[in-house]
């Protein structure tokens, strides 16, 4: 294993586990500035996690072992997902590989477990949020796979390292397919991170919670795991966006530096989107996502009409 | 059998289709069967003894039929006359046209004379036409008897005769056709009060 690969592996672990909470913190702090407030520092999520780690947990009456196991399973799934995403286009040969479809499967596992825990508690708000989240996920999955198809078109491989290499260089930027893929993936990022206009992460009204609903019934270390998992989701989709759809190129170190710049830029873009857009009506979101899918299909058609490569 | 006799048989069959009263029809059918029997008897010289027996059976059949049908008739008085859908002239015309058409179309079936062939087919056709055109139940039976007479005629007109066919046909007539038809005739009368096949339409599901 070369030095570059070892550094990539280290950045994967350290970044994914330790730096992940920084990303939602950055988004919140940018949003505060845009809204004219001073807001909390980007390290606020770390303080949250430390506070939660010291508190005692809650056991909802009438729950089974599923409720107790769910946060650990979700965190484990997301941690495995972090290992799958390469940084700078390189990753050591982890035994779990680096396949995009496996990553999607792990995210699905996390979603399934969280909603199952919601059913275990029987809580009305948790189930309301869970139902809406799952209804969105139907359209988000289709959109995500279309974006993946577009990303995989030049190389034909779903290995994330190969996808990252294929997206490097400047020749991809001339193809409308790549722009369409970028747009589609942008919508996926919004959906997976639960940001406006699809979902409001700052809401305290239980009736408006979508991805936060199931989290209502947890406290203490369980809630710490679940909040870290949400941060890890940010890390995964933002790094994927930077690696697959944003410009990068050159040697590993150049790409690592580009990534270090791209991540805060993407957080700023998320903050701008959240400030500029209001939350959309729940029943309008599928149309929004379907428009993204239509654009992705147009990209696919344009790739073929352009002759393919 | 000479051509004249054969055409008289056909004429009697046409009369059965046309006449209104049941008693007249029974008389005509009896006359037809008797004439057929006598004509077969006249052909016996030169043929086997079975043929003689068969011709006697034909004559006997005529008598038995007359008795059975007459007895059945007296037991079942129609409360009101059963009017057929088609007037007699039309019946006669249709039956005659049918007989002519069929006898023209029929290819050669191997009987001794062409006139016998045509008469046979004409009798069968007229018998079936009787079943179709007449409403009273008794006429259905009479139509089948006429048709069977046609088959018996064919059996006599074959080279050497087919006595077995004649006897079987006579047996068929007497036992199956008349008895069963008469029994049903009685039963239908009991059930519906009249021998009108229109009443049978109610049995359809």
């Amino acid at each position, binding site marked *: 294993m070369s030095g570059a690969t070892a550094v990539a592996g280290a950045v994967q672990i350290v970044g994914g586990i330790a730096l992940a909470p920084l990303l939602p913190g950055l988004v919140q702090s940018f949003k505060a500035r845009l809204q004219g407030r001073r807001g909390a520092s980007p390290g606020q999520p770390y303080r949250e996690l430390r506070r939660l780690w010291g508190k005692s947990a*809650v056991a*909802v009456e009438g729950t*089974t072992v599923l409720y107790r196991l769910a*946060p*650990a399973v979700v*965190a*484990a*799934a997301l941690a*495995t997902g972090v*290992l799958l995403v390469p940084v700078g286009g390189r990753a050591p040969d982890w*035994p*779990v590989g680096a*396949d995009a*479809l*496996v990553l999607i*499967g792990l995210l*699905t596992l996390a979603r*399934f477990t969280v*909603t*199952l825990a919601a*059913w*275990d508690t*029987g*809580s*009305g*708000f948790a*189930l309301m949020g*869970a*139902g809406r989240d*799952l*209804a969105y*996920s*139907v359209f988000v*999955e*289709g*959109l995500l*796979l*279309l974006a*993946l*198809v577009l990303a995989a*078109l030049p190389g034909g*491989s*779903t*290995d994330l390292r*190969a996808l990252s290499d294929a997206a490097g260089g400047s020749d991809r930027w001339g193809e409308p397919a790549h722009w369409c893929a970028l747009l589609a993936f942008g919508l996926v990022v919004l959906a997976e991170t639960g940001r406006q206009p699809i979902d409001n992460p700052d809401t305290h009204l*239980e009736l408006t919670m979508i991805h936060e609903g199931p989290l209502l019934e947890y406290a203490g270390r369980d809630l710490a*795991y679940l909040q870290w998992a949400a941060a890890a989701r940010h890390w995964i989709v933002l790094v994927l966006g930077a690696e697959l759809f944003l410009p990068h190129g050159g040697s590993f170190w150049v790409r690592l530096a580009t990534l270090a710049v791209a991540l805060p830029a993407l957080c700023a873009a998320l903050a701008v989107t959240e400030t500029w857009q209001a939350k959309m009506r729940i*029943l309008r979101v599928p149309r929004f996502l379907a428009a993204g*899918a239509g654009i992705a*299909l147009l990209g*696919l*058609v344009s790739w*073929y009409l352009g002759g*393919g490569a | 059998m000479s051509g004249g006799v054969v055409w008289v048989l056909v004429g009697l069959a046409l009369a059965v289709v046309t006449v209104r009263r049941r008693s007249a029809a029974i008389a005509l059918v009896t006359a037809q069967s008797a004439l057929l029997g006598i004509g077969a008897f006249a052909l016996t010289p030169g043929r086997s003894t079975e043929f003689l027996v068969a011709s006697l059976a034909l004559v006997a059949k005529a008598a038995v039929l007359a008795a059975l049908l007459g007895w059945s008739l007296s037991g079942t008085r129609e409360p009101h006359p059963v009017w057929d859908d088609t007037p007699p002239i039309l019946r006669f015309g249709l039956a005659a046209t049918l007989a002519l058409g*069929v006898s023209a179309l029929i*290819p050669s079936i191997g009987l001794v004379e062409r006139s016998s062939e045509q008469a046979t087919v004409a009798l069968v056709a007229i018998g079936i*036409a009787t079943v179709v*055109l007449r409403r009273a139940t008794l006429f*259905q039976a009479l139509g089948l008897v006429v048709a069977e007479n046609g088959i018996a005629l064919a059996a006599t007109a074959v080279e050497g005769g087919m006595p077995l066919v004649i006897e079987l046909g006579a047996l068929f007539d007497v036992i199956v056709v008349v008895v069963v038809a008469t029994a049903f005739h009685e039963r239908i009368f009991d059930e519906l009060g009249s021998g009108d096949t229109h009443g*049978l339409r109610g049995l359809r599901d």
Partner: protein
Amino acid sequence: MSAVAAVALAGSGLLLTGGLVALRARLLGAALALQVAGVSLLGGAGATVVLGADPVGSGFSGAVEPAFGIDGLSGFFLASLALVAVPALVFAHGYLPGSAGAPAVAALTAAFLGSLAGVVVARDVISFLGFWELMTLVPAAAILVSHREERARRTVFVYLAVTHLGGAGVWVAMLALARYGAFADPGALGQGAQLLVALAALVGFGTKAGLMPFHSWLPRAHPVAPSHVSALMSGMMIKVALYGLVRVSFEWLPEPTLWLGLVLLGLGLLSSLGGVLYALVQHDLKRLLAFHSIENVGIIALGLGASLLFAHEGEALWASVAFAAALLHTLNHAVFKALLFLGAGAFDRAVHELDLDRLGGLLRRMPWTGAAFAVGAAAIAGLPPLNGFASEWLTLQTLLHLAGLGSLGIGVAGGLATAGLGATVALAVYCFVKVVGLVLLGPPRSREVAEAVEAPLSMRAAVVFLAGLCVLLGVLPGLLLPRLAGLAPDGASLPTHGGLELPGTGALPAPALAVTLILLTGALLLARGRRAAAPAPAWACGQLVEPALSWTSAGFTKPLRLMLEAVLRPERTVTARIEGGVVQEIAYEGEVPHLFDTKLYRPVVRIASAGAAQARRLQSGSLRAYVLYLLALVLALLVLVRTGALG
């Protein structure tokens, strides 16, 4: 005769004996044991052939004499049959003694298994069609034996009518193939004959497999059959129909056609999306599972269509990979669908209720059955590291590769299919979260459910075995992949690994994934510590948590029902009783009608009935009219003879 053939014959003999012995009520246990032995021998013979032995028996022939044989594909289906049938029979040991007509049902089960095996090993047209008909009729008999009421009889009528109408396609296809001698020499079929055979096979085998839009019988028939027979129907009968489709499309038609591949892809997409969408809005557990069978048959059809398209474009490696994906999903679906149906049967036996809104909390009362059912639900939802994820991963890989293939039509089809399959998986997750939540978790919703007892040992053993099989097939799918890819025409050879590894693309390292997940979960649980948690009620804004506040099946799926209103067209009536200006009572009735029934089947049935009513005009009831028809016929024939038209 080779050893494999002898084993297979012994197996069939034991199966037949088991069926006959079952007719004596006291020997039910022995009969079922004989059937288990018989079907295991058959499965063993099949597995031996698949795993590398030479094919036994004869090849396909168009001659009219019985011929049987086992080759790779038949062996695979025989092995799947054994894997599903053995737990089903063990389950029946506990399930049958309490139900109506037990000896007859046990004997019919043996006949069903025999006919399933017979279709798969038949090598000539007559035995194929004979066993095919038997396979159709035996479940109908089993349903009628165990239920006598009017609803069951209507269901059987619809089942027989639809399967026979569609199944005419099977007859046409097989007889056409035999007539043109295509078994021995596929090149003998002309263009028109190829089209006829392909269409007939698609309609015929598709009806039996449950592809939309020929699926109408499936959601009606599977729920009313006895549970182990439902498991066999969903697990194997629809797969045997796909076996027929595979034989026709891949072996007996001379070359893979573009239109057949695209049609299969389209029907597969329609079936998978439609099946899971209608499953989502059901509230009867077995009917929901039946719709999921339609969905999974759609996924298999996607794999088969992709394989045909790859073969058409000349990519032999990916064609065999897609073929292997379809076969792997066939096996996986058989396993987890049987598990789910047997579990549902156990719940039915325990609480006599299968309406989702009236169950609840069964995980506590029936831990083994409940846990196995949960594993089956996770498998069918396609979660790693279970077997559903492995075969769906493989199918997604092939569809992704199809999207990048090079021509516009195929590429767009592949892209749409990929997105559709992704949406299907998400919908299946939605549906089975709801099912597990309503059935196994939460408070019991009736007294009977609160007092449910665990299922007897045989039923438990059957479902736990199948759950273990799900895990095993999920963790080591790569052991089967090379053999399955080799079964394709122009089969490619792939190296054997534990996980799924394909050349030129990412890999699914299933064992490593499973181990990593378990280790990480364990580590996190340890880190969480064992501090006792304070018990508290669920948060309801300070109100008491009452049963009236709990969620129903319709409520949970409402967001999607509203989002897809134009497709699902739900109907609802709300009546409120108001007295003195105050609302006393509100009644809400909602229903999602099955669009295929209302828009497609009912008009067809209406037109057919109208035509029949017209034809009944000929039936005047008048003897004289019938004689007139006879006379007219004779006259017509005479004229024809005269004019020489009849020769």
